[in-house]
């Protein structure tokens, strides 16, 4: 009974891990990009489950990138240690920031997190002695000497780690706490939920994941720069992936990340000039016709077909 329940997950994980056996370096590299964005999308959604719209994804991603690369270059630790350090720095900064700003709600919280990301980039740019200023810093050798298969496994580990954390959130009291905060904060408080503590906790954890993703990205591609590491792409694309896949669950952002990631690469090869136009149009159309996102639609369809079958 228990075995069969976990079978799909085990199979999925095995399939993902064995992907390099039947793909080339190209698909691995594409998957690396997709998995990084998927990780960001999922972490963004994990915060959204508490009802808080965070716009700090790119900021903590960039912060983690810089922390990892600077520690690696200046202290010479193992890349893994520096990636973990990137996560810790992003998490600790988020914790401190969260203590100050998590009294804010709605778009006030959103814009404040966005502003913080802007501040990180400008501050890092203006200390060129340490950070390399506008040009950033480069790694003499990047992780695994560019071996795509190993890099794929590294990034897959990051994504799986995030999925596991997300599922832990989904299967423990954390889900009930976050959902109650999202649905009605006053009810949550009156029912004994320490709203502030949970929000700070989730904000720190998701930011730490974004920092880990940033550190990994920086090691894979071998450089950090204010323009590259804090690019708005690291906010907007994950956001689109999570929303398109369907929010408030683990599998929505995962599916959204895979679908949009694959779609963007496919369109690029089919329509070299103007693929982004088609990509944007697809986002618009999907939003209009599948308002619950891909997973939400699938779930609704599944439920409906189940109910009708039950009725017959």
């Amino acid at each position, binding site marked *: 009974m228990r075995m069969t329940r976990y079978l799909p997950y085990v199979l999925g994980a095995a399939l993902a891990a064995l992907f390099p056996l039947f793909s080339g370096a190209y698909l691995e590299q594409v998957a690396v990009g997709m998995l990084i964005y998927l990780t960001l999308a999922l972490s963004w959604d994990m915060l959204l489950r508490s009802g808080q719209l965070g716009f700090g994804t790119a900021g903590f991603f960039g912060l983690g990138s810089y922390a990892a690369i600077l520690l690696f270059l200046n202290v010479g630790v193992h890349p893994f240690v520096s990636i973990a350090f990137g996560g810790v720095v992003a998490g600790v900064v988020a914790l401190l920031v969260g203590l100050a700003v998590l009294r804010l709600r709605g778009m006030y919280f959103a814009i404040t997190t966005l502003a913080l990301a802007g501040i990180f980039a400008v501050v890092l740019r203006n200390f060129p002695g340490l950070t390399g200023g506008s040009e950033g810093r480069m790694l003499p050798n990047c992780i695994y000497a560019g071996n795509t298969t190993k890099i794929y496994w590294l990034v897959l580990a990051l994504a799986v780690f995030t999925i596991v954390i997300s599922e832990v959130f989904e299967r423990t*009291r954390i889900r009930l*706490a976050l959902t109650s905060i999202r649905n009605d904060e006053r009810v949550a408080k009156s029912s004994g939920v320490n709203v502030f503590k949970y929000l700070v906790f989730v904000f720190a954890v998701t930011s730490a994941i974004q920092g880990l993703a940033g550190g990994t990205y920086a090691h894979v591609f071998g450089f950090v720069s204010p323009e590259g590491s804090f690019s708005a792409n690291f906010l907007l694309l994950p956001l689109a992936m999570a929303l398109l896949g369907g929010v408030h669950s683990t599998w929505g952002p995962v599916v959204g990340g895979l679908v949009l990631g694959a779609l963007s690469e496919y369109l690029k090869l089919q329509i070299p000039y103007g693929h982004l136009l088609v990509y944007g149009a697809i986002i618009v159309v999907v939003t209009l016709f599948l308002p619950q996102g891909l997973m939400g639609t699938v779930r609704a369809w599944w439920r409906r077909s189940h109910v009708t079958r039950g009725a017959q």
Partner: protein
Amino acid sequence: MAVLRTEALERRFGGLVAVHDLTFELAENEILGIIGPNGAGKTTAINAISGLYMPTAGRIFLGEEDITYSPPHVRCHLGIGRTFQLVHPLVDLTARENIMVGALFGQHRSLRQARKTAEEIAAQLGLERIDRSVSDLTVLEIKKLEIGRALASDPKVLFLDEVMAGLNSDETKAALDAVRGIRDQGVAICVVEHVMSVIRDLTDRVIVLDGGTIIAEGPYSKVSADPRVIAAYLGEEE
């Protein structure tokens, strides 16, 4: 020995005084009614006692403990439970999970214990469709769910803010029985209600608020004859 006691409680919003000089006690196993015309400060008083608004003056004691400035979740842990005037179910959770929230966070039960507690409470309240999503439930079921959620946090004091509103007479009767059942478990209850028959049948004692302060106190029969109370209600009706 009073379970809950307030001393000269006050809550202002800017220049507006919503509640002032509110001093009352709630005894063990008592059902207290709070009545008063619209805008009398009933819900504000509950919000101040349950911690959604911090009092601007005065004190609140739960048993011996001063909870005047405790945050709302701490008050819940200490034993204050409440429902809301307009129903506030957690719409993305099932009925069972709604009740579990109270057990999980009010009493810090484990998931398994909370699930069991939810079942017991649902059975006690007669809430049958426990694994349905909230959108499928009737008004009565949602009200039961809200009471259940408050009850699951194992309160010493339970505030019921207009739970009977919108129920028909049979449903009201069922609800009254449920509330008495809760009292019999040793929970002191404070009901805010517009339906006077409910107050008459249910409460041991009534306090009447007008303009944010107490204008009368005593058994329903005595209070309902008080000319100040009648004046307050008449003032509302004109």
